[in-house]
């Protein structure tokens, strides 16, 4: 689509030619989508989280369907940062040179592990436009407590990793206490925030009395959580001045537009990629059409333009 609306945005130092990004863990390592559309049209892609060393993840089944969404318990299976760069670095570097910002994601089971994965990613992924640190995975069993579940914990992680890279640093939040935690991350030096991660939830097979996943709980994602995510983006946008990458149930241009009106600078398409592999590309077209309809000359005019 060719329009006169400027779609370029700046996500805390990551320059994107348009606001459409993908959500970590739902877009493989991007190359899988080249059969559906030219991935380089997207403003950015965010890769699956990687740790310093490989993680096995949870046993099968790892996914089940619920009303307007899915539950997953992948458990952050990943090959470790070096193997990741080894297998996907050439492709991702090329994607980056094709004009699509590549964001890599760091995970860890402790502050120290986070530190090591950020450090390693900074080293092995020179083509990355930014590093996102995931302080929110609900599948991470860590004494029952999330890495960044309280403002204090979040501040600790972000302060620890901040000095380790010169790249823009994103922090990915869980869907709880987002206002307070957003402020803590901003104070600790985050350049941007991604929210939200999946909502901890449960689905029981009532015939067997067991979980429909291999774990008692999993993370809810998809259209079901969209209204919750929009509210949290709005809450966070009012709490901080760093830009926000809005995530949660985005499947259409209107869903993306809601995020932007609520205060997001960029929007990540997640679960929709799985069932509608052309979703992110379509969301981009629909978002641009909306900006045209709104009569603005720059999409930035619509960020936070919700009227209440």
């Amino acid at each position, binding site marked *: 689509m060719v329009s006169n609306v400027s779609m370029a945005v700046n996500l805390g130092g990551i320059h994107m030619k348009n606001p459409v990004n993908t959500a970590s863990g739902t877009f493989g390592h991007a190359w899988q989508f080249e059969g559906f559309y030219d991935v380089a049209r997207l403003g950015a892609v965010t890769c699956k989280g990687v740790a310093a060393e490989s993680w096995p993840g949870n046993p099968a089944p790892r*996914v089940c369907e619920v009303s307007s969404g899915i539950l997953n318990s992948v458990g952050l299976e990943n090959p470790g940062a070096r193997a990741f760069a080894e297998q996907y670095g050439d492709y991702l570097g090329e994607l980056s040179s094709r004009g699509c910002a590549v964001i890599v994601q760091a995970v860890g089971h402790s502050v120290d592990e986070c530190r090591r994965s950020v450090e390693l990613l900074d080293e092995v992924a020179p083509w990355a436009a930014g590093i996102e640190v995931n302080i929110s995975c609900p599948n991470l069993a860590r004494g029952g407590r999330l890495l960044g579940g309280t403002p204090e914990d979040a501040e600790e992680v972000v302060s620890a990793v901040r000095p380790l890279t010169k790249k823009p640093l994103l922090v990915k939040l869980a869907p709880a206490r987002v206002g307070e935690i957003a402020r803590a991350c901003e104070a600790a030096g985050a350049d941007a925030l991604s929210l939200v991660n999946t909502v901890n939830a449960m689905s029981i097979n009532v015939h067997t009395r067991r979980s429909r996943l291999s774990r008692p709980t999993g993370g809810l994602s998809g259209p079901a959580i969209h209204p919750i995510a929009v509210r949290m983006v709005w809450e966070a946008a009012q709490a901080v001045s760093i830009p926000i990458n809005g995530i949660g149930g985005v499947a259409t241009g209107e869903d993306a537009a809601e995020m932007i009106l609520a205060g997001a600078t960029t929007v990540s398409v997640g679960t929709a990629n799985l*069932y509608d592999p052309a979703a992110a590309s379509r969301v981009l077209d629909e978002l641009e059409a909306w900006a045209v309809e709104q009569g603005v000359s720059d999409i930035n005019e619509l960020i936070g333009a919700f009227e209440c």
Partner: protein
Amino acid sequence: MKATRDSARAHLFDFAVVSNEQVAEGAWCMVFKSEVAALLAPGEFVEVSVPGDPSQVLRVPLSFSRADAEAGTVRIEYAVVGDGTRRLSLMRPGDTSTLVGPCGHGWRLPGGEGRVLLVAGGIGLPPVLAAAEMLAAAGRTFDAVVGAQRGSKLVGVDVDLLREAASADPASRVVVCTDDGSLGRAGFTTDAMAELLAERSYDAVLTCGPTVMMAGVARLAEGAGIACQASLERMMGCGFGACSCCNVAMRDGTSRSCCMDGPVFNAGEVAW
């Protein structure tokens, strides 16, 4: 292997239903027209979007029994086990939807020139039929064991097609067995398999069916020192490598993707 821009094989296609009929107790057969037909190899699968309930977002992964590149048609058989497959059974000739494919990594033509043994259980029959036709086309001989809980659940037309694929080889045996003896011989596929193994020698075993059955088949094959390929099922989020939801635990402690590395695996490497 390093990923490249050209590594992606799965595309999005439209399909249009040609026919969709019940062929056995709980089992339906659909033929649809789609450009994916020209791209599918035996043992691969497609991810079908079933219309009718936008609250159920995921696609349904389905193997096929035959993909006709010239006619542009694909034949799938499926058991109605839940709401997605129930809605699939309601599609009428002319109805259209979309699918993602080709997905996965199919049967490998077994090395050697000897006889191959196929073992299919229940709705595992379609990909095994595709394997039979692949073997026949390659001039390979095979025997087959086909099992079901009871005769009424067996997709008879597939068994006929299997026999047809085997017909070039007069020595070929196709054994039908049912748990309750209502059709063919009574007993499990693994019983029939054990007897065949005692009588004949095979270069390879190819199997698809319930997990417990495949585990048994894999054990027998291993005991006999025969290479075995098994087509696995997992709950899938995407079918093309985007979500890591479909992991298969391997004996060596590693984990593989059912939709990318599979669904066909070397049975001996799988942690059953």
